[in-house]
């Protein structure tokens, strides 16, 4: 397989309502920044991939309208849309396209502008016969799965609140983040409005407007253009049963994430993830999910995720900083959220993380999460 690397990233600022910019303007802002970051000009991009969930804005085939903003007019351009994993899956598609030799430089742009649509209506458009009446939207689904996870693994509301605090405090060091809350406390999270037991307002990700882009390059241009390319070591995608009732103990087992991680770790030579990774950008749509992912990703043994957050192991100064960017809990333009995870992990390897830079990052983990337990896993490294 040809070596492939991420050589540039670009992000807009994320906010609940970017009324100052249209959808194409957000796309252009991120695309332009990523191309400039890669030291390229737009005409040097061979192909473009767009990641977006069209019904969140009430659109069809939005790349037809947004393509030009991503410098795609006259170029190959496709849209990848797989729910929450759209962004990571679009990046993985870009890795495959460059690795195939068809293209040398691919731009991936993720966009969501939730303020121009009704996201929860979009999320309610599941199977009309079996799922729509009982499993619509993110909250109810997560509430059920989380209750089960808490009961089996002994995770507490306080431990989940600590995840929420870590995310928003980290976000305070990320100039792009939506929810920057440097002084947030666990008690404030626990006192926030209940949404669906046990989820409280501050346990949940926001809906953000924004776009994020990365430039993926083959080995030759990557070495020429980037002093410290973020090489793609391995990636994997796993999808799940389409009906919520068919997934046994979703957050507890999370077999998609486990299986994807197992394969990717093997190919990337990761034996002890907690020690071997220097940073992780994982897709945590809700505080409790981050704890469940710790177990599925092998950061700790089953039932020990609560201890990991209590001991500060995943804090900025811990053994494995998780989501220095503030994660999905701090910024969540859905179509872009997966691209943000990849961009933030690449940024850490590039050494351009600014105030959120972790010292000496050589190996980084990325995950995507979407729909009913669909999972993407990517490992990036400072060496191919």
């Amino acid at each position, binding site marked *: *397989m*040809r070596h492939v690397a991420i050589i540039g990233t670009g992000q807009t600022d994320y906010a609940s309502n970017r009324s100052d910019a249209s959808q194409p303007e957000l796309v252009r802002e991120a695309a332009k920044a990523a191309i400039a970051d890669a030291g390229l000009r737009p005409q*040097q991009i*061979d192909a*473009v991939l767009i990641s977006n*969930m*069209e*019904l*969140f804005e009430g*659109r*069809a*085939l*939005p*790349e*037809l*309208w947004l*393509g*030009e903003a991503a410098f*795609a*007019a*006259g*170029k*190959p*351009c*496709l*849209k*990848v*849309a*797989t*729910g929450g994993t759209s962004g990571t*899956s679009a990046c*993985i*598609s870009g*890795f*495959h*396209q460059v*690795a*195939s*030799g*068809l293209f*040398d*430089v691919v731009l991936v742009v993720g966009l969501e502008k939730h303020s121009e649509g009704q996201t929860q209506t*979009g999320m309610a*458009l*599941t*199977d*009309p*016969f079996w799922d729509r009446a009982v499993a619509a939207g993110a909250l109810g689904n997560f509430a059920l799965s989380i209750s089960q996870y808490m009961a089996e693994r002994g995770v507490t509301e306080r431990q989940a609140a600590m995840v929420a605090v870590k995310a928003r405090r980290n976000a305070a060091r990320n100039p792009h983040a939506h929810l920057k809350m440097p002084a947030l406390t666990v008690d404030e999270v626990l006192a926030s409005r209940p949404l669906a037991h046990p989820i409280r307002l501050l346990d949940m990700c926001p809906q953000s407007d924004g776009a994020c882009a990365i430039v993926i390059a083959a080995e030759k*241009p990557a070495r020429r253009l980037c002093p410290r390319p973020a090489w793609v070591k391995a990636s*994997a*995608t*796993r*999808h*799940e*049963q*389409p009906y919520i009732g068919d997934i046994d103990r979703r957050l507890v087992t999370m*077999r998609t994430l486990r299986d994807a991680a197992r394969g990717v770790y093997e190919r990337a030579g990761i034996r002890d993830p907690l020690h071997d990774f220097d940073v992780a950008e994982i897709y945590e749509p809700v505080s409790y999910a981050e704890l469940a992912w710790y177990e599925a990703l092998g950061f700790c043994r089953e039932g020990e995720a609560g201890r990991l957050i209590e001991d500060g192991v995943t804090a900025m100064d811990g053994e494995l900083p998780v989501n220095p960017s503030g994660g999905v809990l701090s910024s969540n333009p859905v179509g872009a959220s997966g691209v943000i995870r990849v961009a933030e992990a690449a940024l850490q390897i590039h050494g351009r993380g600014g105030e959120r830079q972790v010292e000496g990052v050589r190996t980084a983990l990325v995950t995507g999460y*979407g*729909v*009913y337990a669909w999972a993407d896993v990517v490992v990036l490294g400072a060496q191919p």
Partner: protein
Amino acid sequence: MSELKAPNGDRRPIFIVGVGEVGPVAEDPRSIPEMVLEAVGMALADAAMGHGEIDAVVTASVDLFDGLTASNIAVTEVVGAVMKSETRIAADGLAAAIHAACELRSEAYQTVLVAAHGKASMSDYRSLTRWAMDPIHLQPLDVDFLICAGLQASAMAGADGGAQRRWAQLAARRRASAVPGALAAAISAEAVLASPVLAAPLHEGMCAPLGDGAAAVVLSVRPPAAGRRSVRLVGMGHDLEAHAMGDRDLTRWEGLGRALRRARADAGIASEEAIIDLAEPSCLYPHEEELFRQACAIGDETAISPGGGLFAGTAPVVAGLARLIAAVRGLRGNARYHQALAHGTWGPAGQGQAVALLEAAD
């Protein structure tokens, strides 16, 4: 970073080892997964494979057309993607097949299943296409894909007084070569011209009827079992044009020209005049076939849509993948054909374009 580069001599060959198509029919009473299940079953049977031999899946569907968010959820089980890699390309099915070929060439997988579905009967498809138009400048004008096709046909017809009659004859000829029972019945050129005008200058009889369909293709780096002519995908290219009609020369499909140049470069075909024995274009209207012939410099030595192409009827999203299937069947069934071209398009007036070049390996 060059747009066109020499093909990599040692890259993996890609064989199209299984194909399956359901429909198109005006209205299939079955659900999306039921239709896709049948198409996938046919493709796997054709490839003499089971789901266990499929490493990954690429699907094509469009959320708004299905009325489902992440509408690939509807087909995850029937394409066998539970605990597998699946990528959903929201465009014409041929673009999904091209992405699957990229996955194979990247050496990530050995065998990939591609599936597409579209059910125009579930909705007012024409109205839904308005939601794919620029919402600031075009959607408020109620511009849809059919109106864009009419604008393109108008631009081409110009002062060409014979255009409408020529198009009526072409549509009648294509419909006459469709298999019995096709979605579009045979019709005379006179009847085409007498049919209602849908988007001037396009009459109803010129427009390919849209219905329900599903298609599936198995691509593999391993050749198919002996005993059948094997078909290779040797070149691929795609393109996205500017969106607004006013930003394009509507009398040409320049995007298709670029997609074909990329596909030829990918296949290592230097000559612009390379002979294509069989072309299966995705043309919903006769003026589009003229655009296709011009963009691809296709002359009379090439057989175009021997089975009537999309004029026999088609389904949104499925169309291009169904053309790939028609091209594969053409190569398998006719020893005179060696090179074939499958074409897919999506968006208003051919904004998105995809080309696959196929070769029969004898």
